[in-house]
């Protein structure tokens, strides 16, 4: 890409070219700098991501006892009774382990982070009405699924403090093959 040519095109188009400062590779052409600053308030409405350290978890809480009703109403039709799976994934109750010839991957024996469960339910479930559950309902149904998998008790309270502390059984079950190939932190 020929930067002088691009610059002249932009000038012909009457577009201003703000400071040509580049942190990255030398062949990155200058953009016209049209991005509008995003405020922290705007970002918090856009970013509902929950990280493994619990960053992004909202206020609210729930228990498995409360979550059973949410599950029956919102999840059971696809995921089956007790999370045993149907047209949707099996979520609990694996009879076959990960090293068997016919392994069953469930939350309890496969998912490495409990925070992922909260994040995924809040962003994507139920499929017929995503993002329709309240934060309390998401905590409660997350608790119910962890309870079905024998990871927490029926009345354990799940909230922004307790959820990131849960250590999932398969936490160390993954090999970062990208990092392995690249060396270093595998990202840059």
């Amino acid at each position, binding site marked *: 890409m020929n930067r002088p040519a691009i610059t002249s095109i932009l000038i012909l188009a009457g577009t201003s070219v703000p400071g040509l400062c580049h942190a*990255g590779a030398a062949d990155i052409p200058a*953009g016209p700098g*049209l991005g509008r600053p995003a405020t922290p308030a705007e970002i918090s409405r856009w970013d509902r*991501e929950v*990280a*493994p350290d619990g960053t992004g978890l909202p206020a609210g809480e729930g228990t498995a006892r409360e979550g059973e009703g949410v599950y029956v109403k919102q999840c059971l039709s696809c995921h089956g009774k007790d999370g045993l799976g149907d047209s949707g994934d099996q979520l609990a109750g694996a009879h076959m382990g990960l090293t068997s010839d016919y392994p069953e991957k469930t939350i309890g024996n496969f998912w490495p982070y409990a925070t992922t469960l909260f994040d995924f339910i809040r*962003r994507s479930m139920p499929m017929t009405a995503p993002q329709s559950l309240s934060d309390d309902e998401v905590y409660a149904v997350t608790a119910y699924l962890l309870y079905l998998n024998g990871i927490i008790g029926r009345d354990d309270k799940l909230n922004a403090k307790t959820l990131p502390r849960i250590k999932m059984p398969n936490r160390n079950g993954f090999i970062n093959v990208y990092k392995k190939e690249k060396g270093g932190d*595998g990202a840059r």
Partner: protein
Amino acid sequence: MGKKDKTGTDIAAGNGLLDRRTLLKNGLRFGVIAVPAVAAAADRTREKFDPARPPWMLTPGAGFTPYGSPSPFENDVVRFPAPNRVMRNSGVSFTPLHLMEGTITPNGLHYERHHNGVPQIVPEEHRLLVHGLVKKPLFFTVDDLLRYPLRSRQCFIECSGNSATGWNRIPSRFPAGYVHGLVSNTEWTGIPLAVLLDEAGVDKKAAWVVAEGADAFALDVSIPLEKAMDDAVLALYQNGERLRPENGYPLRLVLPGWEGVTNVKWLRRLELREGPIMSRDETARYTDLLPSGKARQFSFIMEAKSLITSPSTGMVLKSGPGLYQITGLAWSGRGRIREVQVTTDGGKSWAAAALQEPVLSKALTRFRIPWRWNGSPALLQSRAVDETGYVQPSRSELIAKRGRNGFYHYNAVVTWKVDSDGTVSHVYENRNEPSGDHVDIDTGWD
């Protein structure tokens, strides 16, 4: 080289494989390879016309069309959907590779993978947010993005679940494209992602970028910053027209050579972070379980692969013994295809196929080789070698390395058996597979 058959043609390998340079000779006449009969094709009403004075020369033709469609006589060349049995908007649809030639996938035939349907995004109300470990978090409208310097490049996108039924103990009987067609090849036009990251000012601590889509799944995955700064593209155009809704309209992240799920469609948010977010689709899914019980994670790169698209399973060598053209596709997420080797005797001898120029990095590459079929049963395979020297594994090699339960990243050599009656079917090179199946065509796509 140097050996010739009784017609004086150079022989390249056993069982009738001819030198690829034979393709440059005049007067080659290939036998007819009939494609599988499907309902749509069988329904065609074939009136008998006099080709010297056909009716379409005797009356004025149809008028102009604002947007063209294929000939009605090609209406069996369509995607093959394999949706979830309840949530019919979740699943995949396959590109009919076995019914196509060349390397470019027409937009209407690009494979689809939707986790909860195709959103109908109003472009004026779509935004891209770049935030996290940046100096200036920024919003971009689609109109903003269309004013940036654009670049075009051709590359394939392949779902890492492509060919997943290959893990089965019994060979799939579906046509080649409906098993291996979760790969498509497109000229994407857009903005190098580095340009926008540069504008936002990447913090030194940032090492990963989380990309999120604006669909009803809000699918999110983490991508190493290294790739984002290298050849990642924010695609706005697909083969010259704006993206199709099912391919991410109005904005898609394209990561050449990397598994489909990281090529986030309907892109709405990029967050720079120190580490990956550990989303569901990079932990519970899109990780490859090994026999040890550990799973490969962040297995982004689609390794070299090839497939004979014709003749392929379900087809018939209709002209009987004689000269046929073997053709197929090869690709590698690590760069260019260096060579495609073809065998017709089940791997006893191999010959290099002709590669259709231009051979582009991380793009589908068409290969062709002439074959004189002697009428006996034959085993056809292709094997890709990429510019890094990586050789596409045999099925036994892949299974020895990965087991049978990885689901993703199946890139083994595919075997087509030609019977003496000319029918072509899918077989495995190792006939002593244990029985019993695990991967169904529709599992894994919820």
